[in-house]
């Protein structure tokens, strides 16, 4: 369901037998199709190479070490607009927050769907619900979040203006909605892992007198650790890459602006921005319009995504499920 392309299967083994089917004997239209297939494959590689190289060249030429340690300032002059320390902090904080909320809920959902799945109608409703969140546009989730977190009784999660109106934009608000983005990915990966566990694992645990809850907690979930981890990594990728929720729900302010006096709580209640929002605000569509800063930040963002991709590849290739 969810679009994680982790499962490109290994090639079907041993094609030798078909090599006798020589290309020159094919009808013209088949040969044309064959060439088109090659073109599509090479095209895919070329587009990717072009994107990565382009960002690499732009990134290297505009990236300065000072960008990582300076806070952004609201100057129109690109050389005085500061760096993106705060957006990087914001990205890390928001990703951690989103995953911290999404992981327990996602794993619980997956365990319930795979191991209990009853009453059946409820399970089916939950399944389609999760699918619906996976397909819902993140802008819609974002403005829904704004509605919810602007409610008076949730004022403690963001800031209140002098008149008592709730601002509704904070790390808390954005973190909760970001968790919604990550949950479907975590659920899918965990269920996939649970489905691949051999039945003997459960039976052995039952035979030792463990009940179902203990079996899930101490046998099944540890066995699918890697699947959970790769689901979380995919979810982190979604959170890091999303812009709409940050722009609408995090306030997209230049710096992390706390609210209230308590140190950590104030940051979480306050507004800020992330790398994606920083890129957007510095693009021609945003207020900053500083192309060099945008390229540099986008390059850092791309490197983060590449790193996560690498982690997912390692997790999924080092054998999952039954072997673990």
């Amino acid at each position: 369901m969810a679009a994680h392309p982790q499962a490109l299967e290994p090639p079907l083994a041993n094609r030798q037998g078909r090599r006798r089917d020589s290309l020159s004997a094919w009808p013209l239209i088949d040969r044309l199709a064959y060439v088109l297939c090659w073109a599509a494959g090479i095209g895919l590689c070329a587009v990717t190479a072009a994107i990565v190289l382009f960002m690499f060249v732009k990134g290297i030429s505009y990236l300065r070490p000072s960008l990582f340690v300076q806070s952004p300032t609201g100057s129109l002059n690109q050389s005085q607009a500061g760096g993106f320390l705060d957006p990087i902090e914001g990205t890390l904080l928001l990703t951690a927050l989103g995953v911290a909320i999404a992981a327990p809920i996602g794993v619980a959902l997956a365990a319930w769907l795979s191991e209990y799945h009853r009453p059946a109608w409820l399970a089916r409703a939950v399944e389609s619900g999760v699918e619906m969140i996976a397909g819902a546009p993140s802008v819609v989730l974002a403005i829904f979040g704004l509605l919810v977190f602007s409610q008076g009784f949730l004022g403690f999660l963001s800031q209140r203006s002098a008149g008592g109106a709730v601002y509704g934009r904070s790390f808390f608000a954005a973190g909760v909605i970001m968790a919604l983005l990550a949950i479907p990915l975590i659920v899918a990966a965990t269920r996939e892992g649970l489905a691949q566990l051999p039945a003997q694992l459960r039976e052995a645990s039952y035979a030792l007198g463990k009940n179902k809850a203990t079996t899930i907690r101490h046998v099944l979930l540890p066995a699918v650790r890697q699947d959970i981890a790769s689901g979380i990594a995919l979810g982190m990728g979604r959170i890091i890459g999303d812009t709409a929720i940050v722009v609408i729900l995090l306030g997209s302010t230049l710096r992390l602006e706390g609210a209230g006096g308590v140190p950590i709580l104030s940051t979480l209640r306050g507004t800020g921005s992330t790398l994606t929002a920083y890129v957007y605000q510095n693009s021609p569509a945003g207020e900053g319009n500083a192309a060099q800063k945008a390229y540099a930040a986008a390059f850092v963002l791309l490197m983060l995504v590449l790193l996560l991709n690498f982690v997912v590849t390692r997790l999924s290739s080092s054998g999952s499920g039954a072997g673990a």
Partner: protein
Amino acid sequence: MRPFSPEKSRSSSGAADRRAELMLGASAVGVLALIALMTVTVFINAWPSFSHNSFYKWFLPGGDVDVQLRSIITESTPGHPIYHLRAWPLLWATMLTTGLAVLIGISFSILAAVFIVEFAPGGLRQILDPVVRLLAGVPSVVYGLIGILAIAPWVEHNFISEQRKESVAGVVQLTGANLGVAVLILTVMITPIMVAIIVNALSAVPRAWTEGSTALGVNRWRTTWRISLRTARPAIIAAAVLATARALGEAIMLALVSGGRGFAPNLLDGTTALFEPARPLAATIIHYYEDLSNPAMAATLYAMAAVLLVSSALLSLAGWGAKQPLKRYGIRT
């Protein structure tokens, strides 16, 4: 799967078990309740916009949509909110960008998936796996940035001649950010999703089926076309549906490259239509997000969100339906 259920055998551990089930079940119900809440609140907040425009007229063409939106923002007063909107240009732009990108993307993805599963030499296949994953993981704002800073100026310089500008002068101003660029980048964004799903399905086609065909002397392309792709047809439909949902909801990238103007490209303009601006629904919400504090504008934007929400719910229903035949072959997508 579960040949033995332990909770029936012992009552004391059964109670603990029951508690665990209830707790896990509660989280499931919580998520479900949140979704219900989302649907209901979005619709309640969207209602003023729909009802003041007498519902069906909301979807019709009529006037410049950006002028209408600006008058909603500037002329609404607390006592007299203005809701007048004919959203057709935004809907048409959504349909055009999504439809064109999915159409181009699906044919490209089928070819690329066949290449990966059938024709690619071992080394190349090993590269293509991470390539597809990387392309799917690039944040949309990076695509948007490349589009607006690199591709749009290039298009403006090479494709938008003075005659082309004059041919639609007085109607709309042509820039490098336009429908064509939006479709191009959107296609690149959704292709890897489709490739991954189709590759999965193609590799799960029972080996004996293709072998049987090859044994009858059918060549590899014909075998793939007639046997593998036909078996994988539900997966191809599911891939297209998923990609449509993705394209429909894409906001940031399209807000950057689609021209920033609510305009319905006129297909009668021929190729010039490709160079006309076309800002879709989701991008419109991002474009005007700062005006969410204005109640009348908020209702209008929630109405757009409601349209998107209904479309994506219908799409995930269609995707679920499309995937059913796949279960016969034990393919999970």
